[in-house]
């Protein structure tokens, strides 16, 4: 059964100035969130295939929503991340089922390539709970300028039997990044790390 989506929320956060200094080009980060019914809420369900399939569906949907909102070509995406907030009638493992087995492949398709791990966070929460979705460069996890996080939150979700699923995609690293480490120009993009 496809995801029962109650709401879709898409944000773009653009930073033009940081500490009085112009950020050129401005950093741009997109966040797409789906509020879905949790088909396994309220009881123990051994087999979580239904949630795994929902994760696959949402990886593509939310990833392409982000790319579209940024107004970029898929290949211009730079970093990504994912997260989920499970309402109180669900269990943390439901977030794991959505996020880990199958969400990544369609997300990587939406951003073209994506050799690196998609960093993630999950929690249980209630209406308006915020989750800090980690961000990392999509082709090389060690790129220090792209370690970041973006706060995801939907005011009226998750209800007890819902899950908020979030995917973030950026067209930039942090504003005024200057703490060294592996640079974008040094990415080899083969092992997902460097």
């Amino acid at each position, binding site marked *: 059964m496809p995801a029962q989506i*109650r*709401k879709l929320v898409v944000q773009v956060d653009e930073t033009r100035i940081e500490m009085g200094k112009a950020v050129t080009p401005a950093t741009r980060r997109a966040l797409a969130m789906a509020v879905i019914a949790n088909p396994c809420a309220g009881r123990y369900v051994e087999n979580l295939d239904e949630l795994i399939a929902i994760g696959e569906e949402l990886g593509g949907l939310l990833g392409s929503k982000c790319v579209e909102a940024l107004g970029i070509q898929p290949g211009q995406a730079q970093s990504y991340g994912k997260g989920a907030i499970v309402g109180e009638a669900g269990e943390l493992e439901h977030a794991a089922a959505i996020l880990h087995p199958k969400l990544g492949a369609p997300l990587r398709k939406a951003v073209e390539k994506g050799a690196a791990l998609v960093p993630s966070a999950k929690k249980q929460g209630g209406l308006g709970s*915020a989750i800090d979705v980690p961000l990392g460069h999509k082709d090389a996890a060690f790129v220090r300028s792209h370690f970041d996080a973006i706060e995801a*939150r939907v005011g009226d979700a998750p209800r007890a039997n819902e899950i908020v699923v979030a995917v973030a995609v950026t067209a930039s690293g942090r504003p005024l990044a200057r703490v060294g480490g592996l640079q974008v120009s040094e990415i080899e993009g083969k092992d997902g790390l460097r």
Partner: protein
Amino acid sequence: MIEIRRVLTQVEDIFHEFGPPPAQPLRRGVVAAVLRNPFAGRHEPDIVPMMEALNPVGLEMARTLLAAMAVPAERIEGYGKGAIVGAAGELEHGALWHVPGGYAMRELLGWKGDAASYAKGHATGQSGNALAIVPSTKKVGPPGATLDVPLTHINASYVRSHFDAVEVRVPGAPHADEIVLILTMSTGPRIHARVGGLAASAIAKWDGQR
């Protein structure tokens, strides 16, 4: 005087709220700009010059919002505005947004009045869309503060199906010396509106209220 540090847009599609999903989901959009507050940290008696300086900001924000919502202007049925002033400012700084924020959206959505007289409080020549006052809230708040920004029908404030509010929050803003300025628009009534009152289809007076 105007220094925009950050811009956040948000577009929300609401398919249902546990009732029968209507054929068309409700779309609500928000744009929030984080600006330096030039009056932070002191009492400045004359703040009115900033109102005019905000006019182009309002128009840019209204256009950004409509583009993010990806619908034609004719689809917009509700609007609202708000401001969150950082800790080193005062509530009155948020009030600077009333005229430029409201004017920008009404201009974009079809209001054909005279902007100069509108700014002076004499609205004239309202013959197009967006006849109703743009509802608003404002407050002084910390970084990440949420503001419930009201929404009402663009042509008649008493249309009950369109009374709504959208929660707006920019993580990390406003800093003490900043202001978050907000515009919001929606494409229709609350998703399962059913408490009667004036219906949008029954607007008759075209006076901005009924």
